[in-house]
């Protein structure tokens, strides 16, 4: 039950809201305009041979490449593989990251012992690991998924663990005064209290997983957008490269948006 109050809107408030709305429309319009002008300029520059379409591609070339790959279905294979690998590595990051953070929270000694390792692993550029993974695990989906995880997992553990430790110690005391144990503290305070943090960390992670998967595909894949980018650049089919990059932009936005949507739903329900 929420205490809804009916407040009549005054004329000045209505005018203010109207101004606010107009401003939002204007901003959205200008955004679209910038994008349209960019595409137009790009296309014209190539048509008029200001720049070399073979190297810089062009919106129309990208579109043609896209529709050709749509017709023969290869685009679905490549994009599908990349998205699937990203989602799988994301799922692993969520489960492993959260459970490791819980484990660290449960044992002060463990977290103190492992902290320097986590910090080092977190600041290590993960692209350095990818070639190693390919050698160890083989040039297959497994190593690409692990590469995706490697980018996000250590930061997740550190962020969540820090968030768990920042929970008000008096809230924890409350559970003990009510006769609870460490398990109750975890289940009734730490986890429910850090759901917003968990969701915001995950929103960042999905993008990181995508980065890791692309790095993995650069090195050891026969399919996927990362493979398409590397292969395209090697055979000088730059239409492929730039189309894949554009597609990656769209995928990144969609994945981020999906988690953002889930976040909103989750927070609304609470």
């Amino acid at each position: 039950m929420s205490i809804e109050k009916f407040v009549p809107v005054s004329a000045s408030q209505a005018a203010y809201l109207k101004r606010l709305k107009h401003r939002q429309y204007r901003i959205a319009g200008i955004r679209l305009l910038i994008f349209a002008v960019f595409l137009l300029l790009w296309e014209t520059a190539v048509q008029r041979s200001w720049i070399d379409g073979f190297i810089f591609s062009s919106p129309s070339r990208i579109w043609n490449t896209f529709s050709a790959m749509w017709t023969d279905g290869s685009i679905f294979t490549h994009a599908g593989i990349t998205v699937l690998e990203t989602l799988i590595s994301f799922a692993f990051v969520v489960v492993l990251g959260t459970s490791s953070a819980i484990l660290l929270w449960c044992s002060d000694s463990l977290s103190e012992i492992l902290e320097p390792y986590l910090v080092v692993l977190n600041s290590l550029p993960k692209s350095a690991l990818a070639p190693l993974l390919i050698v160890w695990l083989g040039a297959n989906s497994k190593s690409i998924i692990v590469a995706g995880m490697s980018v996000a997992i250590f930061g997740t553990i550190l962020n969540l663990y820090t968030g768990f430790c920042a929970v008000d110690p008096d809230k924890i005391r409350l559970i003990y005064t009510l006769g609870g144990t460490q398990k109750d503290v975890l289940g009734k305070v730490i986890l429910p209290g850090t759901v917003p943090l968990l969701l915001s960390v995950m929103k960042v992670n999905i993008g990181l997983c995508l980065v890791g998967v692309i790095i993995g595909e650069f090195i050891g894949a026969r399919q996927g957008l990362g493979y398409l980018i590397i292969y395209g650049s090697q055979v000088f089919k730059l239409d492929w490269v730039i189309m894949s990059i554009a597609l990656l932009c769209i995928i990144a936005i969609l994945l981020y948006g999906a988690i953002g949507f889930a976040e909103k739903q989750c927070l609304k329900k609470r």
Partner: protein
Amino acid sequence: MDPLLELKHVSYAYHTKSGETYALTDISFQVQRGEFLAIVGPSGCGKSTLLSLISGLILPEDGTILRSGMPGASPHSSIGYMLQKDHLFDWRTVYRNVTLGLEIRHELNKRTRLHVDQMLKDYDLYRFRNAVPSELSGGMRQRAALIRTLALDPELLLLDEPFSALDFQTRLSVCDDIYAILRKEKKTAILVTHDLSEAVSMADRILVLSQRPARIREVIRVSFAREGLSPFARRNEPEFKDYFNQIWAALNPVSPGKEPA
């Protein structure tokens, strides 16, 4: 019959890397059933520490604490502890907040639910049982926190500056409310506060503590000629000022040759 609570020569110190903090030295007192005891002392003298010891959250370094004549017998089940802030969880409804303790102890059943419902009705929160805590006023939040504690049916209630987060007006009325609730439920209570008038207006007996490390300076028995007054009504009685001054003097003794701090 044994007193409900007895402390014998209890001392406690916190140990940290930077050193020792002596919080309590040689504290001894008893609490009888049905009594309302107030403990006053300057901020940081060790009042919260004393309540933590009584509740069994921490163990004394020296001395013994007897609950109903028994040493260290399952402290939590018979002691309710209300912390300084209400700590209602925003991710739970009011109802699920007040039943938190029952949930933790796996005692949520028909009987305890009835008890909780009755208290929510009696203390004017039933309408808000499905609201989230942020929709409650300060006084309502405090009552909800009290119901959460009382739901476990404790014999002894520990109140750690329960009104300190409220503004002055709310504080006076919540003080009356809580006092009435405690009397109605026939609870023994220990109230910790640094507000002298709060202590005089509620307590049967007042323990005055010294600066840290806290010792007992004085024990003052409070009795008003007119009985059964509410805390607010007590404030208008002639004895009120006398008790206030007596505690003030106990807190700020002027020793010869020494300026009062």
